[in-house]
């Protein structure tokens, strides 16, 4: 019977399967199907943790996910997982758990002194203290507070990324949240109508409240059998809806059973994103605590918990329990325990009389009507209770080893609230119920205050009928078959929130918030419920204060002297249950975090020993060497300047533009004119944003009267395509233009260097590549190494250069042909670094200069702007601010001392020690042909400063070196080479 308190067979436990586990190093035995909490209770373990602030002894309070106290660390091979709920943590062989927030041991905890000092540590005490001396907060007080705060310890293990995770995308007609009698009845009806239904419940078994009442077993089993037969219905136990996100979208997390975790390679949870046309919230209700002195002593728990441990796990939470309650439903715990042979020490009912009390007395259970619990004797476990009449008189002591409390039931309305439901006060049940408009969803059963299993089932059926009607289905039957057991006659709840007396009465057990703390907040003016919450941290712990939230509001209302309905309760935010980052992240993490875009020649580059660098989503060859430093880079660059090199520029965005109005459209999106471009010619072009700033640059080539190809920078390719599609569809809707992304279709290589023409001649056929026949900025279709491709005479390097474009699938053969043809000239492939070196020397801009804050004028391109005709950015580029003389303008820079290196990000100043920045260096590189470095910089009034000697200050490197401001066109300003 694994444990002295295991008195009968449980619904979920397998008496045949004993499981060993350990708690605080102590080896214990439970059953398959146990939670850690049920196994501990079965073994008579009451003390399971220390509280957050006062380090008071704490025990198990609930039987499920609302648990505020029974949090433990779980030790796994990959580390230590904090704050696991013992009440939902399923027992697995070898499970090792440790209690939290105690030192040195659970039994004796040094920090428990806080409890004795508690009068000096009221809510918000830290706002008023720890201020002197000035330095002391970070260095003294804060570290102390931080060490004391926090519950579990996270032992981070990098290896945790191995933990698999997955996100499933679900679609359904109706999502039914909660599989109690309400949800089961609704799902069965909806499923029978042929609608797709997703029925989810956070519990390991479907049935909700019907799991705790033997009279409902046959009905429940009949329902589950019906559902299993319906193809259109999918039932997901262990699945908690954690957020409602509107538009019928819900986030849900399925927790896998221990044996499943093993079977699926360590997968722990499964995130499900559910898209539903309609939803039913059949989320039931949550039992409330009562605030009385000592309501946190281990052994004080919810009545529903005792009922749950008995039915689900066959565990009696105590030998001699008493009950303190204000409603009939909670009596069921006493009756069930009595049936199982546990004698009840008495029931303290705040109501003078009730039907349930009569039934109890008829069974020989003593009921103290019109009475309250004024205190608890015992520190580490309940030994006795102080009971008085409701007016505080007639104090007596009742011996008991456990107190089951029930302050009534609050409908679980969080999801409905997230969808905008207003909360309406219902005095009959002393609780708020959500008022949700039917367009957003339906709330049914206990979730809308309709208590009683049969009544709830009926309510679920009605909701199903209404939804089926919304979705155009007519439901004939509206009563869930088979016949429902009859709900017992009941007397209504009478609200009780707090029993005032000496000692701490907690409204939030996990954050150690007492009723006095709430009153203090009110006295200090933090009287709005959101202020009180933030000041006291009430309801902000992992349990979100579900069992005590309304009690705190009630204490606040009493202190303010206003009705509870006016105080309300804090707005519930996602997530209903704490949710692991792994589950939320899904599998698009680490190597899958962002797509890897690979060049058509990626494998060749790899085999050639390239060092790759991530550029946006691309992987690009930086240099064909594993050696760091500039030498290999300069070797590649030198080949281009002196002979010939070839580089892979396939990352350029490439957009095919066709149509009768293609030229007109390009005139509109480019600042310079494109319609005037002759067929067979290419042109450099710049695009502006509507605010007149530079957006992007590239080339435009014309293949035919109605056919253009434009290239964009690598970084902006996607954004430019979207920009053009927007401009075309929003601002030029009548134009006959077709935009097609051909970026992946074409591989493109730049063949650059004085010998490039000779290499080209060897690989192309059917075209005369002589300078006159194929001049600078010419373009043509060509047969390249036997493949149909395109040839451009374009230069980014400043040398005589060509770009060859061929279909990506032909890339390798053409690339190899070029290398072969180049052998005689010692051709070298060059990477991104060399490419950069070359373009910096030439004064060509890239993203470092096109940084979103530069205008065409800043970059010396004002002359390119069309004088005639509209184009994006035209008007606002004329604003005074964009041509102010002190704007940062593009210039070249050279260190006065050729031996010194430049640094990107160094600021330009007038004098060596100036603190006023005149601008900064954007790009720099060692030069290929001469000693020393060159760079590009954006300098205030830069063009007028050409010839001046200024300083490049990199304070973080402790440098300030003299630099000469020169023209950005540092190499071959007359463009002789490219035209050679």
């Amino acid at each position, binding site marked *: 019977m694994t444990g002295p308190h295991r008195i009968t067979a449980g619904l979920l436990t397998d008496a045949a399967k004993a499981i060993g586990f350990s708690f605080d190093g102590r080896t214990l035995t439970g059953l398959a199907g146990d939670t850690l909490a049920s196994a501990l209770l079965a073994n008579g373990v009451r003390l399971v943790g220390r509280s957050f602030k006062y380090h008071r002894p704490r025990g198990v309070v609930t039987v499920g996910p609302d648990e505020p106290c029974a949090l433990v660390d779980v030790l796994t091979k990959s580390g230590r997982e904090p704050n696991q709920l013992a009440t939902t943590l399923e027992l697995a062989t070898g499970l090792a758990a440790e209690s939290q927030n105690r030192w040195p041991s659970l039994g004796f905890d040094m920090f428990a002194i806080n409890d004795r000092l508690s009068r000096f540590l009221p809510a918000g005490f830290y706002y008023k203290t720890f201020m002197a001396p000035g330095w002391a907060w970070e260095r003294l007080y804060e570290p102390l507070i931080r060490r004391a705060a926090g519950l579990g310890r996270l032992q981070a293990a990098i290896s945790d990324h191995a933990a698999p995770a997955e996100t499933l995308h679900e679609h359904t007609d109706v999502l039914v949240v909660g599989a109690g009698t309400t949800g089961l009845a609704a799902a069965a009806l909806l499923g029978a109508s042929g609608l797709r239904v997703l029925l989810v419940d956070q519990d390991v078994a479907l049935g909700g409240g019907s799991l705790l009442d033997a009279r409902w077993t046959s009905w429940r089993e009949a329902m589950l059998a019906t559902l299993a037969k319906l193809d259109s219905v999918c039932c997901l136990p262990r699945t908690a809806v954690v957020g409602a996100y509107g538009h019928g979208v819900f986030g849900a997390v399925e927790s896998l059973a221990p044996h499943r975790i093993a079977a699926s390679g360590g997968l722990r949870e499964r995130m499900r994103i559910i898209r539903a046309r309609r939803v039913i919230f059949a989320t039931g209700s949550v039992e409330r605590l009562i605030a009385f002195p000592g309501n946190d002593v281990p052994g004080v728990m919810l009545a529903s918990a005792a009922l749950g441990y008995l039915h689900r796990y066959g565990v009696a939470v105590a030998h001699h329990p008493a009950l303190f309650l204000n409603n009939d439903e909670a009596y069921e715990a006493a009756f069930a325990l009595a049936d199982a042979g546990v004698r009840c020490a008495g029931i303290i009912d705040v109501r003078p009389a009730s039907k349930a009390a009569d039934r109890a007395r008829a069974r020989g259970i003593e009921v103290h009507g019109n009475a309250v619990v004024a205190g608890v004797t015992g520190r580490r476990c309940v030994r006795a209770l102080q009971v008085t009449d409701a007016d505080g008189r007639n104090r007596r002591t009742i011996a008991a080893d456990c107190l089951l409390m029930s302050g009534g039931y609050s409908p679980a309305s969080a999801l409905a609230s997230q969808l905008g439901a207003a909360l309406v006060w219902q005095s009959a049940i002393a609780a708020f119920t959500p008022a949700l408009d039917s367009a957003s969803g339906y709330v049914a059963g206990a979730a809308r205050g309709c208590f009683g299993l049969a009544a709830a089932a009926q309510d679920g059926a009605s909701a199903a009928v209404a939804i089926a009607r919304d979705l155009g289905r007519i439901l004939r039957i509206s009563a869930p078959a088979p016949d429902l057991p009859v709900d017992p006659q009941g007397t209504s709840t009478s609200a009780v929130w707090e029993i005032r007396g000496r000692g701490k009465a907690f409204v939030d057990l996990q954050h150690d918030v007492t009723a006095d703390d709430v009153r203090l907040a009110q006295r200090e003016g933090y009287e709005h419920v959101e202020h009180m919450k933030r000041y006291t941290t009430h309801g902000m712990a992992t349990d979100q204060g579900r069992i005590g939230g309304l009690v705190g509001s009630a204490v606040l209302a009493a202190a303010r002297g206003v009705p509870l309905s006016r105080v309300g309760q804090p707005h519930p935010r996602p997530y209903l249950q704490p949710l692991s980052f792994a589950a939320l992240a899904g599998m698009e993490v680490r190597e899958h975090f962002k797509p890897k875009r690979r060049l058509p020649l990626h494998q060749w580059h790899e085999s050639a020993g390239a060092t790759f660098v991530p550029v946006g989503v691309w992987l690009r060859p930086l240099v064909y060497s594993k050696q760091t430093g500039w030498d290999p880079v300069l070797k590649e660059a030198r080949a281009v300047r002196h002979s010939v090199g070839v580089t892979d520029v396939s990352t350029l965005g490439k957009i095919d533009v066709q149509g009768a109005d293609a030229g007109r459209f390009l005139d509109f999106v480019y600042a310079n004119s494109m319609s005037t471009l002759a067929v067979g010619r290419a042109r450099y072009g710049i695009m502006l944003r509507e605010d007149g700033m530079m957006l992007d640059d590239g080339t435009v080539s014309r293949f035919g009267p109605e056919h253009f190809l434009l290239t964009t920078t690598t970084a902006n390719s996607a954004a430019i395509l*979207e920009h053009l599609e927007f401009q075309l569809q929003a601002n030029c809707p009548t134009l006959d233009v077709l935009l097609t992304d051909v970026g992946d279709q074409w591989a493109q290589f730049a063949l650059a260097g004085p010998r490039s023409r000779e290499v080209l001649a060897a690989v192309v056929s059917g075209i005369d590549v002589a300078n006159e026949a194929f001049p600078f900025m010419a373009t043509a279709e060509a047969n390249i190494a036997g493949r149909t491709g395109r040839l451009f005479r374009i230069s980014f390097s400043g040398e005589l250069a060509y770009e060859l474009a061929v279909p990506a699938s032909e890339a390798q053969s053409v690339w190899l042909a070029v290398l072969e043809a180049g052998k005689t000239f010692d051709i070298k492939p060059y990477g991104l670094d060399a490419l950069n070196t070359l373009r910096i020397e030439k004064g060509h801009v890239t993203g470092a200069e096109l940084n979103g804050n530069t205008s065409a004028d800043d970059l010396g391109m004002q002359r390119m702007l069309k004088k005639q005709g509209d184009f994006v950015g035209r*008007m606002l580029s004329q*604003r005074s601010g964009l041509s102010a003389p002190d704007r940062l303008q593009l210039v070249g820079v050279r260190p006065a001392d050729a031996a010194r290196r430049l640094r990107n990000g160094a600021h330009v100043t007038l004098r060596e020690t100036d603190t006023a920045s005149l601008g900064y260096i954007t790009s720099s590189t060692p030069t290929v042909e001469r000693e020393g470095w060159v760079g590009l910089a954006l300098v205030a009034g830069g063009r007028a400063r050409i010839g001046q000697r200024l300083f490049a200050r990199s304070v973080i490197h402790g440098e300030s070196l003299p630099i000469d401001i020169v023209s950005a066109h540092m190499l071959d300003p007359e463009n002789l080479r490219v035209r050679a």
Partner: protein
Amino acid sequence: MLRIPCPWCGERDEIEFRYRGDASVSRPAADAGIEAFTTYTYARENPRGWHLEWWLHVAGCRKLIKVVRHTLTHEIRAAGRADESLLLPPEGSGE
């Protein structure tokens, strides 16, 4: 999460689209002057309520579409092709 009813592709998750701003403003004529373009470029009605807006369905049909969305509740009342003229529901409705 928004589920946007693309007139071409049907209801899709918001991540398939790129928002492109207020669709009720149109670009001034070329000669409208700097002030008109300043207003067009910088001024925003930014309503707390119904909003006619552009979305580009980048992961689907790549069409620019118009959507009538409530900026507080996120309710989408209508969606149409770029050339359709969609009417905004009366102010204050739909909250």
